């Protein structure tokens, strides 16, 4: 505790000292001004190097430079312009929305970042409380362990590699990706980017990533093509090409409520009292066949023949 307190004091003094400086201060000048550094110059240098790293990790813009071309030793300072949050004023309704937005990530990957941002905005004089608006709770969840590293990769423009189990595959395959963005669509997280093995744009579902995500290149190595809309990339990938066909189904009276909502035409089946015939559009044979099978003895696929076969195949599989 005492050590941690001394360190906080030293770092705080260092920040104030470098922010107040009009000129670059050399390491010796800093040691003279900031209390808490050891006497030995080597020990001071080591500690000062660590302190600089810690300040930069907090996002404090610590600059290195010289005051004139005659100076041999570089100096340090924190430009106030680069340090300070620009002036921001919010009306009460805007501040309320900000408080609501800060709750969205609660317990998810960026929760700490959202809380940190809100703290800074409140320090700027904004009265944004992280409290509930009457009647609404918006949330994003990031249960997939891959979210954190992929967000960092996207943020820092770093290529990644990960094991991926594509739908229906029995084993995971190692994939290499230059990630362009992370998208949540219908409640699921995806990463889109350039797959360097295949030389094409690819979209991966985070829940199918198997094992850890590792960085496979340095920060800044990924260039997102200008005009890229990752949201659109994922939407296009997720949307099946529409080749609409029409199915004829026989539904038991009162059953298949969800299906009837989609039907283009319905009439009682004259040959089967108590049953109706319905016409339904569909595009994906596999998915639609499985869906019909899920209704069991209440819905019968009449046409087309391939749909009928698909349903029978599913039901036989369930019987075995």
């Amino acid at each position: 505790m005492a050590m941690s307190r001394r360190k906080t004091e030293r770092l705080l003094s260092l920040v104030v000292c470098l922010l107040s400086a009009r000129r670059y201060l050399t390491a010796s000048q800093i040691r003279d001004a900031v209390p808490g550094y050891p006497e030995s110059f080597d020990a001071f240098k080591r500690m000062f190097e660590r302190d600089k790293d810690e300040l930069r990790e907090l996002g404090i813009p610590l600059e290195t430079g010289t005051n004139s071309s005659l100076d041999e030793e570089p100096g340090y300072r924190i430009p106030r312009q680069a340090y300070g949050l620009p002036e921001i004023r919010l009306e009460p309704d805007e501040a309320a929305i900000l408080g609501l937005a800060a709750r969205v990530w609660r317990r998810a990957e960026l929760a700490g970042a959202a809380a940190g941002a809100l703290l800074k905005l409140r320090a700027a004089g904004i009265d944004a409380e992280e409290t509930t608006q009457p009647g609404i709770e918006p949330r994003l969840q990031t249960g997939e362990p891959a979210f954190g590293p992929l967000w960092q990769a996207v943020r820092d423009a770093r290529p990644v590699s990960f094991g991926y189990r594509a739908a229906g595959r029995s084993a995971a395959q190692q994939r290499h990706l230059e990630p362009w963005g992370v998208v949540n669509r219908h409640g699921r997280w995806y990463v889109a980017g350039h797959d360097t093995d295949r030389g094409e744009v690819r979209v991966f579902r985070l829940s199918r990533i198997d094992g850890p995500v590792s960085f496979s290149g340095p920060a800044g190595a990924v260039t997102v093509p200008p005009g890229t809309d990752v949201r659109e990339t994922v939407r296009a990938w997720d949307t099946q090409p529409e080749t609409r066909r029409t199915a004829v189904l026989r539904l038991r009276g009162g059953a298949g409520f969800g299906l009837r909502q989609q039907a283009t035409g319905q009439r009682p089946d004259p040959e089967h009292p108590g049953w109706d015939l319905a016409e339904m559009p569909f595009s994906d044979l596999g998915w639609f066949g499985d869906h019909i099978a899920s209704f069991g003895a209440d819905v019968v696929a009449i046409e087309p023949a391939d749909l009928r076969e698909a349903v029978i195949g599913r039901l036989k599989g369930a019987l075995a």
Partner: protein
Amino acid sequence: MSGAPGTGTHPATATDRLQRLLALVPYVVSRKVVGLAETAAAFGVSEPQLVDDLNLLWCVELRSPDPYCPIDLSYEGGEIEVSQAESIDRPLRLGVDEASALLVALRMLAEVPSLEDRSALSRTIAKLEVAAGAAGAASAQVAVQVDDRGAGSMLARLRDAVQRGRRLHLSYYVPGRDEATERDADPMRLLVVDGRTYLEAWCLRAEAVRLFRLDRVLALTVLDQPAAVPPHAQSVDVDQGLFRPSPDDVEVVLELSPLGRWVAEYYPCQAVSELGDGRLRVSLRTPDTRWVRRLALRLGEDGRVIAPPELAGQVRQDAAAALEQYTP
């Protein structure tokens, strides 16, 4: 990313505290005078801890060229005032993670139809983008698409009903049973979780708190009758997951082929284990197994009910009855 400072239970590090101190000075400066208790609450610390922070700030001393104390403040009578703040009177700029967290969240709210006052939302987003500067750019690489199928006008009416405390009549589709159900419900709040919108309400038919997915509400009538949510009705803790099993639930075990693995992604499973060759064993708890029978028919050979055995038997009967429809 430096984890989640301030949200965990780990002891605060020197840099966590430095961040707080750097925010504390501008917090007071921008408010001129502010109470100790109020400030402690805003920063999530105890009053003695806050006083210790203030003392630490006040003690900062620079020794060269001439010794001076850059920060002067007082907290007499429980009111904090900063008379001199030197150069730390502005908060530090937002980092990329911080700016992105808020901007992504705000843009997600903007997607929810009629959830919020659109003009206030777009004003807030614009102001935050300016304040974040370059740190806000990466947020464009994260997008959340909210599913708004048919929810638009219904959402506005529901919000109004929640605020005015009116009872609702819902016609609600339960896909697991392939039924349209009719019920009265007293609305509690609206949840927007991972892009889906839910109504949380006290269901008078079930006499329990229920979540209704808005895209499954077939019809909605706001009744001219006040809602009466019982005092013991407990809201769902969204942060613990929307669907929590109850001790009365039946435990269902399924084995899935590689083509059936999607089940583990779509349903909240209690346990998931790999069986090799991409096969998976999952267990889930549910109060009603009718939807599992339908799921098993949908899966065919790609899924098998292992337990309970009665359920496995029912699935085989269901499949046999369905196949009879196809025998001429």
